[in-house]
């Protein structure tokens, strides 16, 4: 994990992304649900960036937003740049599955009517594709017979390994892994993570979306801390060694809650989308909450990282 990222090319740059859904509330009244409000993340080539947030914080929508596969009632705001150019719908369609690949969160993303082998090879039948898939499957302890099965015939752990294999088939520039490891054993988690790491070391950008901070700290170069629809901090993994080098009060609270760092906790829960506070989403749980925190809070540079807090120093 070397730094010097400033000289590297930016592959993905996401600025103040917002995602909202229009929903029918009561009767015919429509309500807008702002699930993501301000998401910022940058991925350089050769870099593995983890977006860490708890379940229900809306982080999967980031992956779907980048690929242009959000449901029809979703509205996007903010800016997404891929290789320096706006990521338009047309580009998304051309790039996804080729330069940009997704390792999805659930097996519901597989075609239930297509056998595993042809599905992962994307219909390619040539010897090279077959051989490559055989090799990838071998690495994940998947027998050759698995290629002849349909998704419903696999166990949870096998399905998970099949999903990860999809990303290894091509030569992607950007890999988006959305919670790729729940339900896998620690050994397999390590292997999967090592593979993502290798892809980054060969020059791809890897965006790991996870709730597991400990896992992210093991493999990633940088961590974007995501809280209730907002990126609150962008930090180098090294910043997580000590509490003092972290910038946002939420990141520090996360740090203190690690079992090996004291297992201490703060009160309250992450707000539900419908009762989101104004301004800083962490405000109601923060010691330094005041009126100014209810206004707009800029995402600013601080000590080599970034933070969305008025008081961080």
């Amino acid at each position, binding site marked *: 994990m070397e730094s010097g990222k400033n000289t590297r090319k930016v592959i993905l740059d996401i600025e103040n992304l917002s995602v909202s859904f229009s929903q029918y509330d009561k009767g015919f009244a429509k309500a807008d649900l702002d699930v993501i409000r301000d998401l910022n993340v940058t991925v350089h080539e050769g870099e593995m960036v983890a977006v860490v*947030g*708890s*379940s*229900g*914080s809306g982080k999967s929508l980031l992956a779907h937003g980048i690929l242009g596969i959000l449901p029809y009632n979703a509205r996007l705001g903010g800016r997404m740049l891929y290789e320096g150019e706006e990521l338009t719908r047309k580009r998304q369609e051309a790039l996804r599955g080729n330069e940009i690949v997704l390792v999805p969160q659930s097996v519901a993303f597989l075609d239930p009517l297509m056998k595993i082998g042809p599905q992962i090879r994307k219909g390619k039948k040539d010897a090279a594709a077959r051989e490559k898939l055989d090799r990838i499957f071998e690495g994940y302890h998947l027998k050759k017979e698995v290629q002849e099965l349909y998704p419903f015939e696999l166990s949870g752990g096998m399905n998970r390994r099949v999903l990860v294999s999809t990303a290894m088939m091509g030569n992607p520039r950007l890999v988006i892994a959305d919670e790729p490891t*729940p339900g896998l*054993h*620690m*050994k*397999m988690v390590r292997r999967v993570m090592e593979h993502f790491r290798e892809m980054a070391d060969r020059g791809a950008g890897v965006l790991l979306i996870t*709730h597991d*901070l*400990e896992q992210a700290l093991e493999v990633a170069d940088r961590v974007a801390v995501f809280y209730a629809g907002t990126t609150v901090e962008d930090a180098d993994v090294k910043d997580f060694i000590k509490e003092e080098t972290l910038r946002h009060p939420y990141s520090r*609270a*996360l740090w203190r*809650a*690690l*079992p*090996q760092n004291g*297992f*201490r*906790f*703060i*009160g*309250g*829960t*992450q707000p*539900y989308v419908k009762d989101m506070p104004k301004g800083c989403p962490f405000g109601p749980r923060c010691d330094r909450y005041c009126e100014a925190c209810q206004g707009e809070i800029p995402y600013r540079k601080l000590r080599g990282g970034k933070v969305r807090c008025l008081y961080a120093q």
Partner: protein
Amino acid sequence: MILEAKHISFRYGKETRQILNDFSLKLSQEERLGLIAPSGFGKTTFCKILAGYEKPDVGEILLDGRPVSDYKGYCPVQMIWQHPEQVVNPRLRMREVLAEGDHLEQRVLDGLGIEPDWMNRYPAELSGGEMQRFCIARALGERTRFILADEISTMLDLITQSQIWSFLVDEVERKGIGLLAVSHSMPLLKQVCTRVRDLEEELRG
């Protein structure tokens, strides 16, 4: 009370892999036992057998020397699952989900940080952490004597994990409930348990 698993062996169906193989374990009401086991050992299956959801092929589960299956009505051994969204009825409001428990105390709901407003929501309107709080409350009924916690905080963020465990440890101590905690994280088990069994080491010899 003593909860005892004696020489448990189990497999799902005839043609499948042997999951548990002659496994024994003893747990008293005063202790919190942590369990770390290798992949494919059958941790969840073992919890399901202890709680009476599955019958072992060989061996027995005894509660104070009597088979657990002899206890009629409310089961004194209650399990909390890894994925809360899979163990609540999606069509029930959370108030009704809690009604499945056994004389729950308001104190427990308050201690778990369950807000009154959440009661009227459906499971889909809660986050994983919020829902897991309900599942823990539901398991902490009046007649519960043992709690089996199967990776209950893997899906949660660290702060919620710490909140929930701190409450659960206090509560089982206060009520004299025995606890079995299954996790892959040794630092976590060291924080919450009085004793840890590392089966990866035991099996290596």
